[in-house]
């Protein structure tokens, strides 16, 4: 468990070296993509930019202003699990350096992370203004026809904080917490309430 400063796009060695429990500060160029972008990319669509090594961020930001003066006011992560049907294919086709979102992902994505040696980064859900304050500027936007929250935003970020919760070795903090909470729930439910007064 270490604090690591990483740059996006990143090289395969860096991606492979990140392990569950590492805190990262992401700087460089990252790109957003959520439901519509993932469906589009997984079903044969071409990416309007080279995603190799990039951090692909599950995020539907609030952006004000027009082209040239875009400003992101809120940019927290969205639930990554919704991209589970598409993520493995998107990783295989476009070779991003990391996937970032919240809530973790499923077994199919976990396998793809292992196959390509890349991590899943967990950003703090709802901390939208803090995370937006790590965005220095909007470099551009693609696929805006999907609507602003669903478009691909290319963002230049500095020291955006996240936690590695799934890694290229197959470890997953989410699986660990799920298993542990399941056995705790079982224990809690072994006892029952005392019946209420009548």
């Amino acid at each position, binding site marked *: 468990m270490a604090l690591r400063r990483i740059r996006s796009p990143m090289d395969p060695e860096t991606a492979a070296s990140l392990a569950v429990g590492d805190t990262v500060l992401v700087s460089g160029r990252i790109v957003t993509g959520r439901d519509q972008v993932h469906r589009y990319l997984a079903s044969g669509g071409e990416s309007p930019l080279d995603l190799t090594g990039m951090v692909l961020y599950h995020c539907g930001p609030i952006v004000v202003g027009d082209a040239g003066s875009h400003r992101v006011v809120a940019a927290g992560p969205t639930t990554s699990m919704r991209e589970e049907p598409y993520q493995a294919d998107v990783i295989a086709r476009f070779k991003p350096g990391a996937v970032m979102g919240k809530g973790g992902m499923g077994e199919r994505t976990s396998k793809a992370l292992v196959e390509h040696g890349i991590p899943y980064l967990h950003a703090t859900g709802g901390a939208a203004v803090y995370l937006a304050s790590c965005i220095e500027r909007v470099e551009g936007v693609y696929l805006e026809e999907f609507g602003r929250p669903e478009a691909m935003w290319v963002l230049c970020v500095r020291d955006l*904080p996240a936690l590695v919760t799934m890694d290229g070795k197959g470890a997953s903090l989410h699986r660990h917490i799920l298993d542990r909470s399941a056995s705790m729930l079982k224990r809690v439910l072994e006892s029952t309430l005392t019946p209420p007064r009548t």
Partner: protein
Amino acid sequence: MIPMDSSKLGRSMYELMMRTSTELPEDVTCALEKAREREPVHSTAANTLDIILKSAELSRANRLPICQDTGVPFAVVRAPQAVDTAEITRALVSALKTLTIEGVLRQNCVDPVNGSNSGDNTGPHVPQVHYEPSEGPIRVDFMLKGGGSENVSTQYSLPCDELRAGRDLEGVRRCVLDAVFKAQGRGCAPGFISVCIGGDRASGYLVAKKGLFRKLGEANPDVDLARLESVITEEANMLGIGPMGLGGNTTLLGCALNAAGRHPASFFVTVSYSCWATRRYSVELDETGGVARWL
């Protein structure tokens, strides 16, 4: 009809929505601060809560939306019959559109058939405005509830074999703990849950959601339900799911139980989950539409 000053009413509704999107309610902030004290220094849970509290503070100071998911707008209006409720709806819709242009609300209304975004947060059945006739004064409750927490909200029909949940409060306890477990961090824990015990499938969700307007610290008048609220909160926090599901001592900040009459054949338990960024405000209006007081 009692006429209202439409520009005053418009300003009131604008301010209500602005506050809801940008200022985390005081009781929610306090609960998060207390939660942070319960987590070990430098733990993932403490770091996560630090980022959450810092972000909420930045939002308040700069009047920026707490979360980029500014949720589904939901309003409950209580007013005497003589009040022109259509005018209140018009003011709510107009404020919604203005704040969407200003970037305080995200464009969150999508056509489910063709996938297009209306761009202004309005659409069929959106926004939801529920009217309840009252003796007055005029009161407007407003909530912005995010999609992630709505997605983990759920409804059980008792008896439920799988959970060994019967048609009693013990059955309710088992359902609610199951809902918290299944949500893991996906509803942006640590959250709040409001539950409707009884009702039908439709009223269950509505009553549960309205229950989220109850502030922390406002006691449930029903002693049995109040007791069960504490039990559920304590037991949910034993699960170790923690802030954002990354592990920790705080999974649930509060639980509100509500009861609704049920059909003899039905026993529903409906759980409405609300993220740590629970955003709701209530305001009382004077007869001209101006703000009389914040509740």
